[in-house]
């Protein structure tokens, strides 16, 4: 079953013909993702990577029955692209774009509430269900099939976690890179909830970082729901200084509640198996399953 994307997903690429869009579309096609076409306004009717290009997402949905979209549109136009996908009836929207102004994302978050869609990102590596579909920019070979779900704000740290899970003799059901911006479509709790309800996921790796309250919210939800599956947690940034942005727009300590230590404490209190070192994720997940 897995979550969000699988072999039945029909994926379109917004920003299909651009540099990033082209490169990662090729990678996704090679992986076996069912890319059914793409959207670049003004280039409708052309073929790109042997797939049709459409002017609008609505046209693409009409012709291809696409239900998933991945967005590589530049930051100034990405908020618009998300809303276009939501309006066209796309069910899972994955926005890779980094650098969207917060002011543009506030109305997007409001707009998609009334639509039947799940937004992943922005500023994220995407979603992968190994062996079925890669809708993202992650290196596919790292993610071997299995029964561990991964939720993470970061790109390479997700790959690191996946690699450790695989080296521990396990595999991944679905890995969800939720994104490192202050406003994202699917907060940690919602992504964890998807995996908690997935019959093909036995345990969850939850990776967060400094800034905001998403990890604490997720931890409290996990406890309130009876800790149904073991969750291994890690928070990056225990050495980050207050008030400095650590790469991700959302990775900034605002007060005493969103430090790595504060988040880890709440997670531990809620029954999450917190690791102090990011090198211990793989071993810990193996240990909690035994």
């Amino acid at each position: 079953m897995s979550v969000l994307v699988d072999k039945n997903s029909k994926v379109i690429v917004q920003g299909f013909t651009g540099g990033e869009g082209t490169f990662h579309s090729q990678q996704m096609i090679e992986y076996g993702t069912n890319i059914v076409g793409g959207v670049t306004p003004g280039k409708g009717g052309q073929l790109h990577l042997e797939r049709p290009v459409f002017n609008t997402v609505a046209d693409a949905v009409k012709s291809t029955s696409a239900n998933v979209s991945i967005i590589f549109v530049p930051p100034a136009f990405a908020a618009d692209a998300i809303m276009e996908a939501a309006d066209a009836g796309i069910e899972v929207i994955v926005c890779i774009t980094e650098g969207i102004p917060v002011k543009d994302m506030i109305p997007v978050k409001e707009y998609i509430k009334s639509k039947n869609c799940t937004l992943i990102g922005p500023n994220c590596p995407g979603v992968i269900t190994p062996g079925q579909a890669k809708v993202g920019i992650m290196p596919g070979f790292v993610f071997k099939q299995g029964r561990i779900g991964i939720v993470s704000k970061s790109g390479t740290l997700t790959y690191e976690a996946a690699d450790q899970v695989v080296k521990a003799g396990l595999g991944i059901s679905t890995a969800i890179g939720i994104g490192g911006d202050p406003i994202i479509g699917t907060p940690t709790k919602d992504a964890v909830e998807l995996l908690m309800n997935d019959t093909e996921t036995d345990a969850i790796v939850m990776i967060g970082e400094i800034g905001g309250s998403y990890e604490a919210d997720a931890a409290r939800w996990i406890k309130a729901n009876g800790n149904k599956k073991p969750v291994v947690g890690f928070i990056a940034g225990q050495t980050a200084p207050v008030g400095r942005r650590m790469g991700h727009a959302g990775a900034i300590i605002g007060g005493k509640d969103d430090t790595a230590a504060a988040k880890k404490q709440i997670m531990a209190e809620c029954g999450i198996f917190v690791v102090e070192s990011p090198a211990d994720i793989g071993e810990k997940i193996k240990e909690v399953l035994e």
Partner: protein
Amino acid sequence: MNIHEYQAKQILKSFGVAVQEGIVAHTADEAYDAAIKLKEQFGSDFVVVKAQIHAGGRGKGNIVGKEQRGVAVAKNADKAKEIAENLLGGTLVTIQTGPKGKVVNKVLVAQDVYYPGASATKEYYMSVMLDRSQSKNILVYSTEGGMDIEHVAETTPNLIHKETIDPKVGLQGFQARKIAFNLGCKGDAFKQMVKFVTALYKAYDNSDAAMFEINPVLKTSDDKIIAVDGKVNIDDNALYRHPDYEAMRDLAEEDTTELEAQEHNLNYVKLDGNVGCMVNGAGLAMATMDIIKLSGGDPANFLDVGGSANAKTVEAGFRIILKDSHVKAILINIFGGIVRCDRVAQGVVDAYKSIGNIPVPIIVRLQGTNAVEAKKIIDESGLKVFSAIVLKEAADLVKKAVDGNI
């Protein structure tokens, strides 16, 4: 992007927010002239001289080696000149600057707004920011203005109010009135406060700000409501549509090494530790800093080289990290996905040779595509570079380096 108080007030004023008026001065003579002008304009001999640095706590901060606070009242233009002389070129240490302090290059000579009159003056606190848990903007306000708001939040949280702004309709009149009532404003002050709050939110919304903090907002003795201080942070991602704000950036307030890193498209934050690091990806970079700490060292920096870890970026990264004389070892941690590890390894070797002698041990951890080939390139390079594939091995090597065992 942070800006100075005087720039924040320019933005506020452009949206109709009443502010304490002032004139920027770069020299003591300019400060004298500014005080004279303010006297002509407002009729009072008194002015306030305020150091302009990107840090709060100026009023309680002190200039190194002098008995001079960062914000001081002058009873006349001569006094203003004297204070400006003390401040300009001096290093101001406040609770927010850290012990190193910040050099004062400009002062704001501002009107005296605490003049006596029909009613008592009153200070409030007000800020506008994104509430990340709601993905909506909120207006935070309190009757306890003019003091450290975090202290107020801890000791008397009931005195801090929050008003959520519905993104569909923006700040409404009833909300502005509620705020004015909750702050206890009456009569003309009430009307002025409603106007102030409305203009403040408009300024925040239209300037693509990430944060506005006005502390204090002052009710004057003649019932005017004005912003006496202003801390404004503009969303970096939105600067492309505000070239006028982008021009307000003061490079003198920023770390020179961080500026150099930006020129190379490297995301670098200087820290105080002894182990440098270079990583691809922000999350993994933070995690790598944590590994350094757990291995007994302290991270000297955050450095995300992004998706393009090649010889050029690695060399730039080396040069930037090595500017810091406290660095005793460097850990490079690259998870090669689409970028191949053997190419990164070759990049490390080339960068090392290009720089010549690097005086500290380098630990290179390359994992992902072609990691084994990469390790071979490093091991056979003959350089003082130690290779690892698994994160744990890298952590152990960092520990050895910190202990002086490699």
